[in-house]
Structures are given as structure tokens and as C-alpha cells.
């Protein structure tokens, strides 16, 4: 697995290697979550029946986790090992991440997304209990790499698509997401790791962009559903931002020229003064043409800064 990551990156020359991408569901499976395998390159998803329907189930899950169910899982072991190997071999040249979902999304996987959404109104105490567990679960997943210092100066990931604007209200985000993200970010920061935060959706809604820096994350990746210029205006100096080249309409459906055009727009809007990483706005589909990926990375690589922080775009 580590060989694959490293050899692919020798070809595309990205600045970040995301280990375990598409495998965020395996830690849940290690505790008994049911994986639904897909054909082709599609990552498996967690399907029903869900493993937590009451507090008793949750207590059993705590026991399972404390008794090492995740550490004994061969796939979790593999993801952690691969991450460690990538750090050892190229960690000086690139930033290495191991990826995971965030607590709200994991809670959805434990109790079912629909159940989570209904329980926000009908049983909020239970939701908080599962969220608390999900945070412990997140930390447990990273534990060996954090304890050994493997991810020191590297990056931990919180990607929490189920808490997207449009799915839950700002009020719910403040109550059910922000404190849990903050707890995770505080913990990983104290261990010397950077934190990559991504939540899909349009963050202009209800001015909820204000909440992003409060998480304590190092970088926030912006979905193409809103303008990166807006993120730059609101978040500049508060948190590093990344994104938001459209992964479907541009990277998947477009041609290299379209990618170039979109990359230039993002760079012009967000790169001056620094604090910006050029990237796709979310996971890219497996059908994205190689030339489009290459174009995106080349555009970032060829863009230079002047001493004043202005950007010099490539021809």
C-alpha cells in the first residue's frame, strides 16, 4: 500500500499524500459495522443493520474498543502501517495524512444517518453520548501513530460530510459538531500534528463560516458550492484554506484547459498573501482523467510568490 502511494506520487508530484483515502469506513467495520462492498474502484460503505441503537449497544462498543478490536483489525493495521512507512520514506518531502471521518459522520455510521437526523430533534442526549464515543473512536484510530510521534508535523484528518450546511442548521452545528471538532483539534495540536478539516456544502449559509476557525483546525477545505474568494475574505489570517476546483464539473467532466482556467480563478482569488492550498474541492471521482489531475498539480507547482506576497501565475 505504501509503495502504491509513493509510486503514484512520484508520477503526479503532489505535496500531500492522503493515506487511507476511501477507507474511512474500515475502523467502523473493525467494531462490527457492516461493510457493503462495491464493484470496481468504489470504496465500501457502511450499511444497515447499524450497530448502535441504544446505550447498552454503545457500552458494548466501548468495551470492544477498549479490548483492542480496532488494533487487531488487519485492515486498520494495514492503513496505519502504510501511513508510517510513507512518513518514514517521504515524510520529509511531502505532508502525510492519514484520513478519517469526523465524529458527526461516524455517529451517523454507528446509529444510521436517518436515525441521527431524527434523534437531533427527538433524543439529543443520546446523540451527544454517541458523539462522545465517536471522538474517543477517532483518537483511538490515530493513537499508535500519535503516541509514536509518526504524525508529528504531519496531518490528521477530520472530514465530516454529514454535518454539511444544508443538512443541519447552524444551531445544530454549534451544539453537535463544533465542540467535538474542537476537542479533537486541541488534542492533535497538543501532539504536534496539523489538522485538515473538510465539511462539504455552502458555508455562506447562515454565516456559519464564523464557526470554522473556532474548531482549531489548521486548514479548512472549501467545497466548490461556494466561492473560494468568499472564504479568503472571511477566513484570511484566521485559518489556512484549500480547494475549491470543482471535482465533478471541472475535474471529471472538463478538459485540462478547463482545469487550468478554474485553477487560475482559485489562485487569483485565494493565493495572494499566502494561506491557501490549491486543490480539488472534495474527493475526486475515480473517472477523473490523469491529465486533469496533472494539470491541477502543475498549476499549483508553477505558481510563484513575489517577496510582497503577490502571485506570479504560469503562462
Amino acid at each position, binding site marked *: 500500500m505504501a509503495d502504491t502511494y509513493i509510486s503514484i506520487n512520484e508520477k503526479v508530484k503532489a505535496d500531500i499524500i492522503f493515506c487511507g483515502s476511501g477507507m474511512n469506513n474500515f475502523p467502523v467495520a473493525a467494531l462490527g459495522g457492516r461493510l457493503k462492498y462495491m464493484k470496481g474502484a468504489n470504496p465500501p460503505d457502511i450499511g444497515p443493520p447499524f450497530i448502535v441503537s441504544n446505550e447498552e449497544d454503545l457500552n458494548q462498543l466501548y468495551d470492544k474498543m477498549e479490548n483492542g478490536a480496532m488494533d487487531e483489525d488487519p485492515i486498520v493495521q494495514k492503513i496505519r502501517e502504510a501511513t508510517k512507512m510513507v512518513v518514514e520514506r517521504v515524510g520529509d518531502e511531502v505532508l502525510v495524512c492519514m484520513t478519517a471521518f469526523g465524529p458527526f459522520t461516524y455517529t451517523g455510521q454507528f446509529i444510521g444517518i436517518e436515525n441521527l437526523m431524527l434523534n437531533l*430533534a427527538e433524543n439529543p442526549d443520546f446523540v451527544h453520548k454517541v458523539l462522545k464515543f465517536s471522538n474517543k473512536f477517532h483518537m483511538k484510530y490515530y493513537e499508535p501513530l500519535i503516541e509514536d510521534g509518526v504524525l508529528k508535523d504531519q496531518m490528521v484528518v477530520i472530514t465530516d460530510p454529514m454535518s454539511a450546511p444544508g443538512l443541519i*442548521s447552524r444551531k445544530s452545528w454549534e451544539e453537535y459538531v463544533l465542540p467535538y471538532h474542537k476537542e479533537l483539534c486541541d488534542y492533535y495540536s497538543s501532539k504536534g500534528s496539523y489538522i485538515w478539516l473538510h465539511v462539504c456544502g455552502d458555508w455562506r449559509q447562515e454565516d456559519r463560516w464564523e464557526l470554522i476557525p473556532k474548531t482549531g483546525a489548521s486548514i479548512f477545505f472549501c467545497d466548490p458550492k461556494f466561492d473560494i474568494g468568499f472564504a479568503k475574505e472571511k477566513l484570511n489570517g484566521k485559518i489556512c484554506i484549500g480547494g475549491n476546483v470543482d471535482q*465533478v464539473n471541472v475535474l471529471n467532466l472538463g478538459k485540462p484547459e478547463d482545469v487550468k482556467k478554474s485553477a487560475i480563478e482559485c489562485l487569483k482569488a485565494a493565493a495572494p498573501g499566502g494561506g491557501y492550498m490549491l486543490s480539488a474541492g472534495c474527493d475526486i*471521482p475515480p*473517472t477523473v482523467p490523469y491529465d486533469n489531475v496533472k494539470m491541477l498539480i502543475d498549476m499549483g507547482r508553477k505558481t510563484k510568490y513575489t517577496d510582497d506576497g503577490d502571485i506570479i501565475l504560469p503562462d
Partner: protein
Amino acid sequence: MGNEVLEKLQEVIIKGKRADSPALVTQAIEDGVDVDTIINTMSDAMKVVGEKFSKGEYFITEMLLGAHAFKAGFDVLRPKLEEKVKKTGGQSKKGVIVLGTVINDIHDIGKNMVASALQAAGFEVHDIGIDVPLEKFIEKAEEVNADIIALSALLTTTMGETKNLIELLKQSGVREKYKVLIGGAPISQKFADAVGADAYGEDAFDAVNKAKKLMGLS
């Protein structure tokens, strides 16, 4: 409206009190309220839920609660509706829709909300579930003589199935028989145009509007 039970029924759907809607529908039936009036009341309530969602006052939780409250009431009303259809020899339904989440995709919330919203708007909806092989969509559409095939795909890895379905419809020589309506988080109008779908629904209530358009109703 002038009927306390119906007013209450509308309120519980809008507020998503799903435990309360069946008893109110039963009460309305017992009071002798016409089934059409009851279903219209419930549909109006769902419209309000949709408007609140569009305005950003409601989110998925409130939409789901509303849809559950609607469905719980609708289940009580269903036998009465069927009875009426038998008596009058058919109802003036807006169209027949086969709906499902594409193969390799097990997301069902959006699809379920679309089903409820379409049902509330008067469509006959055949929900064939999640992770549905493409052939099944066509089989079911043929079986129920559908007007529209509606596909949901929530992943960038599965959204391509919408294109595959359209290809399969062409290969089977039935592309012209059905309108294809698609939706799901990664899907856009541009994507829908690129794969040759007849319409794209941005959310459950947009899907209703698009379905009506496809049927020439608006």
C-alpha cells in the same frame, strides 16, 4: 379550512410530530371528511415543509420529521384512497414514477424524501430501494407503465450510473418511453445535461417541480 382536526393535522406534519399524524387522519375519516380533502391538507403541509427547507429555515431533520409524519398519516389513509379509486374507476394521478438509488450506492434519505414529496404532490411512486441494478429500474418501469424513472446517486463514484441507465434505455429501445429525472449531492444541472438526463432535481421539492414539468403539468 374551518376544521379543527385538519388544522391540527397540517400543524403536526409541518412540525414533524410523527407520532400524532395517524390518529388525526383516523379522526378526520371518522368525522366523515372526504379523503381528497384529507390528502390535500397533508400535501399542503408538505408544501410548507418544502418552502421552509428552500428558505433555509428547515434542514434535513425537520424535512425527515415532516416526511415521516406525512407517511404515517398517508399509511392510515391509503386503504380509503384505494377504496375510492375502485369506486370511481381511477384517480387523477399526476404520473407514475419508478424511483431508486443506483447500484453500489446505499444512501436512502434523499431518495426517501423525494418519494414522500412526490407522493404528497399526487404522483404514484414505486420506490424500488437502494443499491438497485439498472435493469431493475427498467423492468419495474415496464411493469407499472411508468412515466418517469427517477435515480438518486450520492457519491462521485456512483453518479456515472445515471449515464449507464440512459445508455441501457437506448440499447433496450425504450429511451423515448420514459423521462429520466436524476438527483443527489454530487449531481448538477451540468452533469445532468452531460449524461443526457431529462431533468435534475436539486432537492426533494425541486424534484417535484421538475417531475410536474416533465409531465407537462406546469
